[in-house]
């Protein structure tokens, strides 16, 4: 539960600020000049802050829409990502955010208009081509949506941009705003799924697999494009048993023919972030696994990565042969 909200002076009266604040009672409001005074400060402990994170309402000044890393996208050459929030209400131990940011507070950029303006500019630079825009790189796209209302806002933009494709990446079951609105073809809601043991041990505070599947079914039934991201694949000696159970459960519950896309990707983190993660969580078993460094990234030993990606991909192809399926390697 959020008990403290920091607000940049400049956006105190912004309509989104007012709307967000109306969702809270009994919170401490603290004014600041720039969110970086709190978020980027040295000598903060992400692990301690994660016990009681605050919300920071801020204005983003630049870098609204960025080129997606190679191989991040599903298709096409024009792949971008954007983050209306930094950090996530969940606490997944494999997440790179805990190694990237000094603070565990959530930052919400309230100047939503600037995101759509910049997406519009990117579209103008590819007048005859399609482009893909990914939300949920530095946060979970939907987890705080009842507070932010961002999904409604961004969907209203994409509704009139048929050449622009939007992907929400999420583990959240906060789908009420999506179910209330008409589905659009150029939007996919991609759910990250892991075996139940991994969800329980490494994905603290996230909805259970059962609840995520329930949300996915409701979205499918309402006509939304639903995708699955089996990422990150976590190595265990008996990974085949756990992932086999996961695939069976998922494809029993969902209509595989109607799925928008499926991806698999192994656990991988930039070396610097990984170092921070181990420093914060030296007691985490995941980090004691068969990991190695290659080209500045920490990942499972190459042969293990290949083995898992190949085996999981084959299982998916067998169970959902008609679904667009790809591997994410970066």
């Amino acid at each position, binding site marked *: 539960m959020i008990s403290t909200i920091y607000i940049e002076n400049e956006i105190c009266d912004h309509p989104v600020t007012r709307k967000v604040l109306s969702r809270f009672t009994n919170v401490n409001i603290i004014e*600041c000049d720039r969110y970086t005074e709190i978020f980027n*400060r040295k*000598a903060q402990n992400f692990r*301690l802050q994660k*016990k*009681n994170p605050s919300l920071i309402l801020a204005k983003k000044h630049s870098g609204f829409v960025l080129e997606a890393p190679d191989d991040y996208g599903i298709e096409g050459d024009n792949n971008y990502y954007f983050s209306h929030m930094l950090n996530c209400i969940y606490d997944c131990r494999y997440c790179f955010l805990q190694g990237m940011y000094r603070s565990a507070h959530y930052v919400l950029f309230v100047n939503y208009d600037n995101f759509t303006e910049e997406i519009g500019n990117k579209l103008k630079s590819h007048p005859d081509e399609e482009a893909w825009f990914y939300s949920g790189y530095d946060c979970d796209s939907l987890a705080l949506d009842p507070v932010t209302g961002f999904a409604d806002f961004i969907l209203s933009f994409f509704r009139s941009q048929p050449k622009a494709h939007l992907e929400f990446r999420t583990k959240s079951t906060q789908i009420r705003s999506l179910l209330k609105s008409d589905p659009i073809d150029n939007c996919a809601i991609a759910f990250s799924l892991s075996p139940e043991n991994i969800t329980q*041990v490494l994905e603290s505070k996230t909805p259970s697999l059962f609840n995520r599947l329930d949300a996915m079914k409701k979205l499918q039934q309402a006509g939304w494009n639903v995708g699955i991201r089996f990422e990150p694949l976590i190595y265990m000696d008996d990974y085949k048993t756990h992932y086999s159970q996961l695939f069976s459960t998922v494809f029993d519950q969902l209509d595989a023919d109607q799925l928008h896309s499926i991806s698999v990707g192994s656990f991988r983190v930039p070396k610097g972030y990984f170092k921070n993660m181990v420093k914060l969580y*030296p007691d985490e078993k995941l980090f*004691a696994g*068969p990991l190695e460094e290659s080209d500045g990234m920490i990942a499972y030993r190459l042969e293990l990565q290949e083995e898992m990606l190949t085996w999981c991909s084959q299982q998916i192809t067998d169970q959902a042969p008609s679904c667009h399926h790809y591997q994410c390697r970066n």
Partner: protein
Amino acid sequence: MLTIVMALHCEASPLISKYKLKKVTEVHHYQYYQNNKINLVISGVGKAASASATGYSHAINGSPPHTAWLNIGMAGHTDFDIGCGFLANKIHDRSTQQTWFPSIVFEPPCITDKLLTVDRPDSKYQLNGGVDMEASGFYATASRFTTNELVQCYKVVSDNQRSPMKKISTKEATDLIQKKLDDINFLVEQLLNARHALSALYESPIMFDEICDRIKLSHTEQLQVKDRLRKLYLLNPNALTNKAILENQSSARKLLSTLDHIIARQEISFP
């Protein structure tokens, strides 16, 4: 350890009694009290005095990592009642215009509010919040030594716009703090627990000291051995009870190779 920094002895006396703190006679520059968990230093009035006492305390304790710090004292406030205790959520130094935001990671036992640190007593109550003379000096110094979450400032209101500042007797000061011992004790416990949880993460792994007794390790080798022992413990806590690992280990290189070999054989599973 938790170090409490307070300006005046009359403010500190309820804490000295409650925690049965003993005067450390070897320390001559400050009045300094201690038990096995808490240090308390009487800094004198003003941010420079508070900063200097904080730095001094850190140094004489051997500059340990993950220390916790708490500044307790009296403050004026625009409208809080006299005797009300509050935890600072924003500290602003009027003369330097610097601002700090203490990170409060627990549910506080009291109100939180902003705090302005001034160089001279101020009875204008212009800021909608608290006014003191120590917090910025204390916070700027203590937060150099540890993570922000372990540095807090707690103030008890001694005057406000309705009852402006007057000379407070030592008994009044003592009473104001005495009445807030429950809040203070809660903060002390929270900070000690957080500090303990953090320190426990970085203790030397099992068997490390024994290895150091047997094999001469360079600093880098020590880090490598600690890393391997940590991994082995996480994968199989029982593996480190087997002292056979240490037999016939004539060098760090051989030991590291043995540990790598054992780690590679461990089962990787998540319950």
